[in-house]
């Protein structure tokens, strides 16, 4: 049911862990639904120099967390903000339809972490900043 890329990222997840005193962190999902994703960002000079995650969830949830961290590492904030759940799913060679919400969770966790960074540094939210609403999707 999963692509080889999903299985690879599930079996060998990249960037698992935590960052102490991160520039920004976001945690999304809830244990009731069976998925929780937490993302940690280290940001220097507008560039994401390091990123880590922790995830409680199914194979797709772990794989999308891993892929999303890979896709934003070394990118500027502006570039990272353009990451969509579809891009994460495509980079994994697709996800089963019932698992698409996992990729939404990854996008949301990243945006929560960026919002946390903006708030901590008194940076106004960029124009058009939106976060996908995972809760609605899950109902």
């Amino acid at each position, binding site marked *: 049911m999963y692509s080889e890329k999903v299985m690879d990222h599930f079996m060998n997840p990249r960037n*698992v862990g*935590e960052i102490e005193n991160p520039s920004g962190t976001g*945690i999304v999902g809830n244990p009731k639904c*069976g998925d*929780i994703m937490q993302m940690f960002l280290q940001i220097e000079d507008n560039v994401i120099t390091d990123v880590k*995650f922790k995830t*409680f969830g199914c194979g797709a949830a772990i794989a999308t967390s891993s892929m999303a961290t890979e896709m934003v590492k070394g990118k500027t904030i502006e570039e990272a903000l353009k990451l969509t759940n579809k891009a994460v799913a495509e980079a994994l060679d697709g996800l089963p339809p019932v698992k698409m919400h996992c990729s939404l969770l990854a996008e949301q966790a990243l945006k929560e972490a960026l919002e946390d960074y903006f708030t901590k540094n008194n940076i106004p939210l960029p124009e058009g900043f939106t976060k996908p609403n995972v809760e609605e999707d899950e109902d």
Partner: protein
Amino acid sequence: MDRIYLDNAATCGLLPEVVEAMQPVLAGKPVNASSVHAFGRDAKKLLDEAREKVAKALGAKKEEIFFTSGGSEADNWAIKGTAGIKGRGHIITSAIEHHAVLHTCQALEKQGFQVTYLPVDEYGLVDPKAVEDAIREDTILVSIMAANNEIGTIEPIEEIGAICKAHKVPFHTDAVQAVGHMEIRVHEMNIDMLSLSGHKLGAPQGVGVLYVRTGLRLQNLIDGGAQERSRRAGTENMLGIVGLGRAIELATENMEKNNAYETALRDKLIHGILDTIPDSRLNGHPTRRLPGNVNVCIRYIEGESLLLLLDMNGIAASSGSACTSGSLDPSHVLLAIGLPHEIAHGSLRLTLNHLNTEEEIDRTIQALKPIVERLRAMSPLFNQQKGGSQLV
């Protein structure tokens, strides 16, 4: 890598003795038991023999045994067939039934029937007193499973049968998981209808049985030819039926031996998991459970990732997590025994049979610990529990 199969409650492979018994059909001789010619008579003989074997295993008469396409059809027929005769009324079932019963009852609710879904206790047991209290003037059927497919809890069907008899309400039991693992005497236990399935016993998929007590009226589910005494049409699935006959005969002959063997392995597996994995719990009753059933919850991790990693280690299991059920809710059975969602998501079902070995159980216990540690290391919930940085 030798794979270990611990998903026997989902299906088990064909038993070699069953394959052997099916040879006359597999050899390619035409077997239509309705035909008048010699081929037909030979087929009729095979059919009768299989029916007798099933009847003997259940303590029923052979004319009370009706072959179906499986357990789901048998459940549907028992419930919809009763509803069809009565036209209206009230049905009592439990919250932990198989979907073949639950969804059938829900379908009848849409047609105006009323259904009581009895709760269960923390072990998954239905209280017979609660069945009695729920019986009303217009109750047309009680359907309570003999043993639960997820957590293995064995229900007090004999007591429930006695209550139903006293109140003159027909009693159906879904015994798909129970047959071959517990002594069932339908007449003594006041069971009016019983469903069973072939592929849980080592026969092929696509064959099952509904036992219907003599004199009980039931609307047909499948109309057509005169097969099964005009109560279930369709040319008989001879391969499946012959296989089922042999499988149930074997299961009955070996029940005592297999139960003792499986119970010992089961308890070894349960204790092996609970002793080596902190924050794990057994679901279902510690002793009133099917000999081959192990169901545990492992906190802070999610069932599907656990299954994928077990599979990578050559171990086949199942889970009641949302991700494996195809919905966003975890198993209705685990919720009914009072588990919160987040714990139910971390469930693991390992179901063994007499073909599993002690060495396989040891390997499973050994494989589980590092898998759980690995998933917990990346779980934000585990982190939170252990006092790490936390935001939830």
